């Protein structure tokens, strides 16, 4: 094992590899900072560039884009209130209010340090506990998966926004939107109304960009000229203390470690990734906090939980990929494809046959997170310049970046029409105080939920009781139900005689 570690480290610490990784780190941060450009897209764009490299060098560069990308998403989340990636949705809840409250530097620093520690913790767990964790994750069957998704959606619906009912409606609308297009099991077209635009379904990235980015950009120019001081998005003076913020992050060890562990576990579940981990970690931090009412108003705990949670999925996602050849996310699937291009079979024998490669990837994760940290610390002031750019430049150009991101995904102009329509719907929903995160999560998780529900029923010969008789599935469903009831009870308790209040507000 030690020999493999050293051999892997030797390759990673080669000068040219380090240079390529540094470029990858910067590219990942910049790409994810642009709304609409996800980590997945950045890695897809990187893949062809690594064909001429060796397997470990190529994968190391992609890992640095991956790690950088998970951090880059927080930049637009904190400064613009637009999650650069699905993984930074929860980051907007507190980082954005903190930035709007005059502390954009602190919001970014908190995110960067939390991401760094989250990645390091997840890599340590990846190295030490990969086999048993992967075994647990892989043992989850379709009943458990479906129940997990119901549980996750319920939490998200009640977590964000001011109304549980509107949160649930938004989540179910998301599930409904995900049913448009080909059926995930048999490929039969559904609810397409024979429209060419709807025939391929609604790609979740288009929904994400439309719902979050376009609606946010439209919101930015509301009542233009009245509330704006200089036209800048964050007009206040920036105070930025990197090392003080590092200490601040370390002063929340329980939140940091808990969020990282949630990220590792969720990342290790195939199909579940940073998009769920950041919300679950945020929820746990909120529920464990002595001051839960501070969440959503710019509390550091919220930023730490979200960023440590989403960054830790990077290490968690590699667990099933390296141990079993099952990619935990789209990004892991691309990493796997990159290895296969080089003729390396990814599966249980990877550690046995290519130990230096597997352990080299662990080393590369650590190096990539260090590079991300250095790049962010040294260049964060440049990112903060975004705050000086007037709306007249930033709103239209970010909108163009969204259009490019939506187009580059599938090279389909029709996706852009979907983008516009979904953006308008998102703006309408936002104006009526519907939370948007449950809708996007519903779109992402809808096909996974449906596939697992149908598989589970196939295995149980159509017997729905299997979801209740299975202990893990029953636990998740029970927790979801208990959570909804508890939320209703909590809303009713302060003011007597009003379950109506719980349903209404």
């Amino acid at each position: 094992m030690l020999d493999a570690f050293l051999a892997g480290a030797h390759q990673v610490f080669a000068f040219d590899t380090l240079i390529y990784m540094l470029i990858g780190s910067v590219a990942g941060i910049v790409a994810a900072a642009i709304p609409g450009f996800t980590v997945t897209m950045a890695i897809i764009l990187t893949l062809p560039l690594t064909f001429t490299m060796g397997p470990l060098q190529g994968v190391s560069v992609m890992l640095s884009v991956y790690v950088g990308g998970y951090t880059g998403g927080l930049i637009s989340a904190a400064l613009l209130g637009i999650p650069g990636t699905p993984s930074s949705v929860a980051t907007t809840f507190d980082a954005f209010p903190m930035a709007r409250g005059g502390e954009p530097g602190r919001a970014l620093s908190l995110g960067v340090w939390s991401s760094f520690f989250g990645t390091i913790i997840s890599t340590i767990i990846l190295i030490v506990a990969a086999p048993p964790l992967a075994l647990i994750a892989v043992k989850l069957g379709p009943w458990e998966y479906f129940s997990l998704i119901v549980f996750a959606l319920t939490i998200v619906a009640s977590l964000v926004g001011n109304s549980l009912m509107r949160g649930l409606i938004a989540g179910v609308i998301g599930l409904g939107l995900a049913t448009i297009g080909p059926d995930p099991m048999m490929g039969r077209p559904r609810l397409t109304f024979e429209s060419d635009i709807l025939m391929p379904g609604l790609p979740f990235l288009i929904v994400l960009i439309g719902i979050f980015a376009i609606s946010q950009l439209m919101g930015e120019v509301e009542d233009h000229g009245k509330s704006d001081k200089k036209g800048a998005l964050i007009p206040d003076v920036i105070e930025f203390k990197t090392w003080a913020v590092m200490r601040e992050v370390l002063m929340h060890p329980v939140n940091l470690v808990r969020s990282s562990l949630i990220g590792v576990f969720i990342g290790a579940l195939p199909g579940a990734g940073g998009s769920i981990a950041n919300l679950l970690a945020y929820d746990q931090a909120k529920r464990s906090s002595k001051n839960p009412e501070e969440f959503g108003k710019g509390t550091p705990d919220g930023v730490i939980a979200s960023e440590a949670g989403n960054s830790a999925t990077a290490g968690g996602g590699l667990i099933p990929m390296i141990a079993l050849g099952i990619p935990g996310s789209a990004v892991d699937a691309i990493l796997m494809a990159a290895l296969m291009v080089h003729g390396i079979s990814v599966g249980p024998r990877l550690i046995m046959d290519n130990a230096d490669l597997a352990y080299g990837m662990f080393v590369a994760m650590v190096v990539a997170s260090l590079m991300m940290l250095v790049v962010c610390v040294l260049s964060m002031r440049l990112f903060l310049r975004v705050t000086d750019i007037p709306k007249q430049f930033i709103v239209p150009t970010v909108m163009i970046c969204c259009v490019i991101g939506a187009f580059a995904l599938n090279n389909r102009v029709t996706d852009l029409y979907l983008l516009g329509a979904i953006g308008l719907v998102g703006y309408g929903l936002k104006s009526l105080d519907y939370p948007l995160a449950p809708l996007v999560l519903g779109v992402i998780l809808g096909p996974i939920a449906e596939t697992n529900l149908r598989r589970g029923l196939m295995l149980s010969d159509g017997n729905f009781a299997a979801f209740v008789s299975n202990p893990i599935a029953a636990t998740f469903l029970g927790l979801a139900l208990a959570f909804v009831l508890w939320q209703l009870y909590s809303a009713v308790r302060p003011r007597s005689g009003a379950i109506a209040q719980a349903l209404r507000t």
Partner: protein
Amino acid sequence: MTNGTEKSAAADASASAASRARTEFARLISYIVFGLGSVYLSLRAGELPTSRWEPLGAGSFPQLVFAVLAVLCLITAVRAIIDIRKAGRLDGLLEGLCGWLKVRRFSFALFGLLVVYLGVLPIAGFSLATFVFLLITQLMIAGISKKTVIQSVIAALIFSVGLNLLFAEVFNVFLPRGMLFAG
């Protein structure tokens, strides 16, 4: 003096109640739209053929999802109606709508320009369509002056022609080419 303050507070409370009622009314419309839409989609999904190979066919899941959505919308709509009745007043709907639209006039103008831009994109090509879109939107937000025109033209050139070149040359991603203009 006290009497005047009380009257002012009562007027504020009344205006606030009316505003809440108007907001709730707008939400009620959304619940009705989503509810009716989900009933329709649930029925359409039910028309999809069942599968021979599995207990649930292609239509079952969407049918279930839209049925749940319809129930949620119904419950929430009923609560909204009760709430509006409790508020007691629902006057000034037209003024409220006009005020709402006035505050958001730039947002809708921006969206309108986006729709036109997306429509023109396959005809004019990325560079030309984007240049015009950026120029108009930037001037709409910043206002027209010599300084803003120069700044907007430069920014529009960079983010239209420049981005197109960057994606084509560096990333091998070719943005939409127009029928009239290839760029």
